[in-house]
């Protein structure tokens, strides 16, 4: 990140595929030119020494750049060059000579210029002065007037194992181990202190006095050799812990600045005093590659430049960033040189040998963004195109773009065939029904046909609980176009509950040719023999339903040929069916009138037999499409019993939510205790647990018990949901028969009072049904504007089922009065209402929150009274309704509250209209008798409503 970039003055690319690192670049007036201009000395790891003297010419288009004459000297050595330095290494003169470090050799050369005779200039010569062979692999060397000698530079070679070898020019002085050396760090000589500073492997800056090193020999008098194996442990003068390895060290000797040592770490720059105290530090937010302090421009500060791996050159004055310039390469070494035409030029060297002499300029570092292709803009054309596109968008806009459009034709076809006969050998497994040894099973054949080759088809078979299959999902590796795959599955009842319906759903998912996931489903109806078995008819039952038809009665033996069992050969007027592990349902056919009756102890159990009966009757009479057979229901809706189912289910839900609340509470208690225990265990000083562990265990047990309770409750809820579902199917069916609904209307009804019970923790059947029914009451069934204004209640679990029951009763009432569920149909004539439940209405009196509904309920009440009075008039038992004051006694307290009237009315009616049913031996139900008794009682309190 930089605003500016370095401006190139002169640059060249050195060598091909040669490597350079820190130390390979040296700037010095190596040929001791009288002008004092610096030369660039470069040694590569490939052993080639090059000396440049950049002399670019200023032309109109900037600097002329590199020319071959700039190369002063190029010489190849056999050995890699690790470091080049210029210093006064020659004993004979005080001129600068060149020291070159090879892995095992230190050589010193003098470079001299011989003035040429022709115009081409001078000729340079490289003469070897002396060399030392090194015993250890060298790493770096530093030089300086060790021991304070004047006009001479001694050399200190640092080897890879951290040994220092001191060479006093032509002669070897001594070798010393540095303590704890593992990998060598940068080393520099501080002339003022006559010491070496280095950064050791312990990541601290250490300062060793030359004196200390010199005298720390094992045995005085013995000749020093490079090849030492052991030595006295030398101690450092001072150390400073930087906490990181250093890349470079620089000793500051600028006159304006206080003498200090700058250390470039991997993440920080430290400035230390000569006694090892921190002057300042700067945390770097990038990876530095090299640095070079170049001057002290104002009193007491140090200016230095840092090269980074983000390809920028940063100039700092102490900790303040003064300048940042972008570079072309990552520098491994930066130096400052004075050339003939340019003083204080920055010389940088990159890893791959890119040598640059640059200066800082205010040229912006323009990152030229790639041109967005600009065309000649033709606005009229663009407008036309835009308009066209807009039109297209508008056309397509109505089809939701957000939901992708789907193809209709499927690649895969799913055919389901249910075998007409039960399996000879039942394949049922894992049956959990008390009192039943075996249940029948039926085979389903699923055939998958495809037009293309389809891989990995997943087939799932979903049966309504308690029905189950022997295998519910299959994976078909591939289906070829001509050979359809076939699966055989057996369905049977596994658990002890009533099935709500007998549809099996099969879905197959696959990847279409376009790569999209596709699912196709099929639905098939299972035979009722799967859940029913024929038994002898039972005379008495609590609940009875009578349906009317418009055709003479038929022998039941004819329409239930497969479910006769022991009744085969009987008169065909009564059949009994029993659910596996469930109640017995008895079907009766009147001999004379066109009526059929179902009776059972449980209302919800009648659904499947009723459906079976109606569909078989339909089949029997309506052969062909133009049959005029019609079924109707003229009895009273069994709302009261239905509401008991609603209540039972609701209780389970309440139980579930209570259990979950408790579980939630216990779980958070558990966590709190855990947390407390944890803090105690974490405590350094142990404290007594104060029975927290007992509490923890107790809570844990409670959680386990609650978990069991939740599970049990879930089971109970599933059963009650199934019952409710059956009941809802039954109720909807009866309403349909009762009001003679069209299919459209029935669909609305089924969607409102849905037989699909799906309970989640957040929403359940009661509130959803309530909302749906309220919506119907507010819209299509609204009588006045007042009705329409009622606000829907929130979809939260209600405190009781009063509202939903009231609303369902209201719905039935309005439907009974001829209201239609689909707008546009003509009003039907009012039907007599037999059964608005008294219980609901009593609850309604408690709940006066909805004023709009009370009037509606009053209507129900009144209708009810009206109907009753009419009926009673018809029966000759005239009684004045208005004379009687409503009773205060809560009807809820009475057993069979309100039920009796209904049963009474029903039984009377049935008796009057279906006399022959009485003749049948099984009709003398005690309930009816009881009703008679209670009728007398009812005279005292006839209007419990």
């Amino acid at each position, binding site marked *: 990140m930089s605003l500016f970039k370095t401006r190139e003055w002169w640059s060249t690319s050195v060598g091909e595929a040669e490597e350079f690192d820190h130390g390979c670049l040296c700037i010095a007036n190596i040929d001791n030119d009288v002008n004092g201009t610096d030369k660039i000395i470069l040694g590569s790891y490939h052993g080639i020494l090059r000396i440049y003297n950049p002399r670019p010419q200023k032309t109109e288009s900037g600097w002329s750049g590199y020319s071959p004459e700039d190369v002063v000297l190029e010489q190849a050595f056999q050995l890699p060059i690790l470091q080049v330095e210029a210093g006064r290494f020659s004993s004979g003169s005080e001129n600068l000579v060149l020291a070159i470090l090879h*892995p095992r050799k230190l050589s010193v050369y003098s470079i001299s210029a011989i003035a040429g005779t022709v115009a081409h200039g001078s000729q340079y010569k490289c003469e070897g002065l002396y060399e030392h062979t090194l015993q250890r692999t060298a790493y770096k060397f530093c030089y300086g007037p060790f021991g304070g000698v004047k006009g001479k530079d001694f050399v200190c070679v640092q080897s890879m194992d951290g040994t220092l070898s001191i060479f006093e020019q032509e002669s070897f002085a001594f070798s010393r181990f540095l303590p704890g050396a593992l*990998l060598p760090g940068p080393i520099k000589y501080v002339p003022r202190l006559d010491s070496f500073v280095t950064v050791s*492997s312990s990541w601290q800056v250490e300062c060793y006095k030359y004196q200390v090193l010199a005298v720390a020999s094992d045995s005085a008098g013995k000749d020093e050799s490079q090849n030492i194996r052991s030595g006295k442990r030398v101690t450092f003068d001072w150390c400073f812990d930087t906490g990181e390895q250093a890349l470079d060290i620089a000793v500051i000797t600028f006159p304006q600045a206080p003498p200090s040592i700058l250390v470039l770490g991997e993440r920080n720059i430290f400035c230390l005093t000569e006694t090892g105290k921190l002057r300042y*530090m700067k945390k770097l937010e990038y990876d530095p590659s090299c640095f070079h302090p170049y001057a002290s421009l104002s009193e007491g500060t140090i200016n230095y430049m840092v090269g980074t791996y983000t390809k920028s050159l940063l100039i700092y004055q102490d900790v303040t960033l003064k300048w940042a310039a972008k570079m072309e390469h990552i520098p491994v070494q930066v130096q400052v040189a004075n050339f003939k035409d340019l003083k204080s030029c920055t010389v940088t060297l990159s890893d791959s040998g890119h040598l640059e002499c640059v200066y800082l300029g205010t040229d912006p570092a323009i990152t030229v963004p790639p041109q967005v292709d600009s065309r000649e803009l033709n606005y009229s054309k663009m407008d036309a195109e835009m308009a066209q596109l807009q039109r297209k968008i508008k056309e397509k806009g109505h089809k939701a773009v957000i939901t992708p459009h789907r193809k209709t034709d499927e690649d895969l076809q799913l055919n389901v065939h249910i075998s007409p006969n039960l399996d000879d050998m039942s394949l049922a497994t894992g049956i959990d029904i008390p009192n039943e040894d075996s249940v029948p099973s039926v085979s389903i054949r699923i055939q998958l046909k495809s037009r293309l080759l389809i891989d990995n088809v997943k087939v799932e078979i979903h049966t309504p609980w308690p029905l189950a299959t022997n295998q519910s999902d299959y994976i078909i590796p591939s289906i070829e176009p001509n050979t359809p795959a076939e699966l055989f599955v057996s369905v049977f009842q596994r658990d002890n509950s009533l099935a709500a319906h007998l549809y099996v759903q099969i879905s197959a998912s696959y990847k279409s040719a376009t790569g999209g996931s596709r699912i196709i489903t099929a639905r098939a109806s299972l035979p009722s023999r799967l859940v029913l078995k024929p038994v002898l008819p039972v005379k008495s039952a609590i609940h009875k339903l009578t349906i009317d038809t418009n055709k003479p009665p038929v022998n039941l033996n004819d329409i239930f040929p497969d479910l006769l069992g022991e009744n085969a050969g009987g008169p065909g007027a009564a059949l009994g069916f029993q659910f596996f592990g469930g109640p017995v349902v008895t079907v009766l056919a009147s001999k004379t009138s066109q009526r059929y009756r179902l009776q059972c102890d449980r209302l919800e159990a009648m659904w499947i037999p009723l459906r079976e009966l109606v569909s078989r009757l339909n089949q029997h009479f309506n052969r062909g499409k133009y049959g005029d057979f019609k079924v109707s229901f003229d009895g009273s809706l069994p709302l009261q019993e239905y509401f008991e189912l609603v209540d039972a289910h609701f209780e389970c839900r309440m139980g579930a939510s209570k259990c979950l609340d408790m579980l939630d509470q216990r779980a958070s208690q558990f966590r709190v205790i855990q947390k407390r225990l944890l803090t105690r265990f974490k405590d350094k000083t142990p404290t007594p647990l104060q029975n927290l562990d007992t509490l923890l265990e107790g809570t844990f047990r409670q959680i386990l018990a609650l978990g069991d309770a939740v599970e049990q409750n879930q089971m109970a809820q599933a059963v009650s949901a199934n019952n409710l579902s059956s009941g809802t199917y039954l109720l909807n069916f009866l309403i349909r028969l009762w009001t003679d609904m069209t299919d459209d209307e029935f669909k609305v009804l089924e969607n409102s009072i849905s037989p699909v019970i799906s309970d989640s923790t957040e929403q359940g059947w009661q509130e959803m049904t309530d909302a749906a029914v309220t919506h119907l009451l507010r819209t299509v069934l609204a009588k006045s504007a007042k009705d329409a204004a009622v606000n829907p209640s929130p979809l939260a679990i209600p405190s009781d089922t009063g509202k939903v029951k009231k609303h369902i009763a209201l719905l039935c009432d309005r439907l009974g009065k001829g209201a239609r569920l689909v707008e546009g149909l003509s009003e039907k004539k009012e039907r007599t209402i037999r059964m608005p439940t008294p219980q609901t209405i009593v609850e309604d009196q408690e709940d006066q929150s909805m004023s709009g509904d009370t009037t509606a309920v009053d209507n129900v009440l009144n209708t009810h009274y009206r109907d009753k009075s009419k009926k009673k008039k018809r029966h000759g038992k005239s009684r004045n309704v208005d004379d009687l004051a409503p009773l205060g006694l809560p009807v809820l307290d009475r057993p069979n509250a309100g039920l009796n009237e209904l049963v009474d009315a029903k039984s009377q009616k049935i008796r009057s209209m279906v006399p022959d049913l009485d003749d049948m031996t099984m009709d003398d139900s005690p309930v009816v008798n009881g009703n008679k008794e209670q009728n007398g009682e009812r005279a005292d309190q006839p209007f419990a409503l």
Partner: protein
Amino acid sequence: MDPLFLAYSYFRRRKFKECTDICTTLLEKNPYDQAAWTLKTRALTGQVYVDEVDVDEEGIAEMVMDDNAIANVSRPGTSLRKPGTSGQAGPSPGVRPTSQSGRPLSGFVRPGTQGGRPGTMEQAIRTPRTAHTARPVTSSSGRFVRLGTASMLSTPDGPFINLARLNFSKYAARPNLAKALFEYIFHHENDIRNALELAALATEACQFKDWWWKVQLAKCYYRLGMYRDSEKQLKSALKHQDMVDIFLYLGKVYVRLDQPLTAVEMYKQGLEKFPGETTLLTGIARIHEGLTEMDKAVKFYKDVLHFDNMHVEAIACIATHHFYTDQPEVALKYYRRLLQMGVYNAELFNNLGLCCFYAQQYDMTLTCFERALSLADDQTLADVWFNIGHVALGICDHNLAYQCFRLTLASNNDHAEAYNNLGVLELKRGHVEARLAFQEFLLISERRPAGHRPTLGSVGTRTYEPTKSVAVRFL
């Protein structure tokens, strides 16, 4: 050429791969070569090194099961959890978008700026995590594990050092080996327990005199969630040696302990020792930003620029501040500076476009957005289209706005604001039903943690105005 020398040279030039390879061959020849061993540890560490000061990923468990909170109800302006209580005058949240936790969106994306704090554990667990808003359950399972496994992949023969068989006390006594080993365990292996054990032994071995080991102990404690122990170690380290890093770590610990004011105090102490240290100044500015004290934050960001005028974060945050305080021209200058400095991404062009638009330099607006679109990736594309939609709303081209919001949804179907604005547009067209449909979508996408995209106002009211949301972010 000596292979060890070459490896060391590669290491210096940050060519860690080559360095590791050479060290591996060296170690095959001589498994007891300590120099090669150390170099390899350091090279492997260098590959994955991230400055621990910058790493701040707070997982759900850390947030919720935080037993270090001092007070449940903090005094106004003293907590980062309930920002905006300081009563400082800043732009209202109606103008400047806020993150889910209520902090204003920063001008610079860094770890920890995007998350919000869920109230309870239950809420946190129930919050669905989408790809956009994935928050690790604990910090040790999120990002750190990824770092660990990444390093495992690079060494198919298994880990370089078998930590289970390491005799820590032996290594702890040798500072030249131990420090590199510690960094390897901490950064490369990400095995905090072992790192802690080594650090504890090492600090004992040097008679508790080395500040470096104390800082490392503090780092381990911090990772393990033992902030008070971490604080203790850092304070002790400070007695030996003043270091910038120590102050930064202390500040970090106090932020995690939700004591922003103490953290600022710590940073200020650091500034007394190291005047002009930009990292410390930035730390203060970030805290003020988190506390919605925008004026103070900007003041410190300006101080940062005084010492480092190339500081991208400072420039971006100041620019964002100016943008949201209705000075788009000034913001534009800062953003242009960023552009000149070489920041070149979709976010910047997007912001430039918005600044141009609000500064009424219409000729540049669309060009900037074109650039932004060409540079945007999937994540930012939605935001860019959303902002173009706003520009279209500004010039009353409702058709274009509609298309833009549709395109927003095409690139990110989770974009609550776009649903909302489409709803408003549909309402304007008189399509109440369609508007309701969008409102529904809005509710669905709102239920998820919105992450960086804030919505303003309350959902469900009819006077729900389109939001101004700018993705002012740099990576």
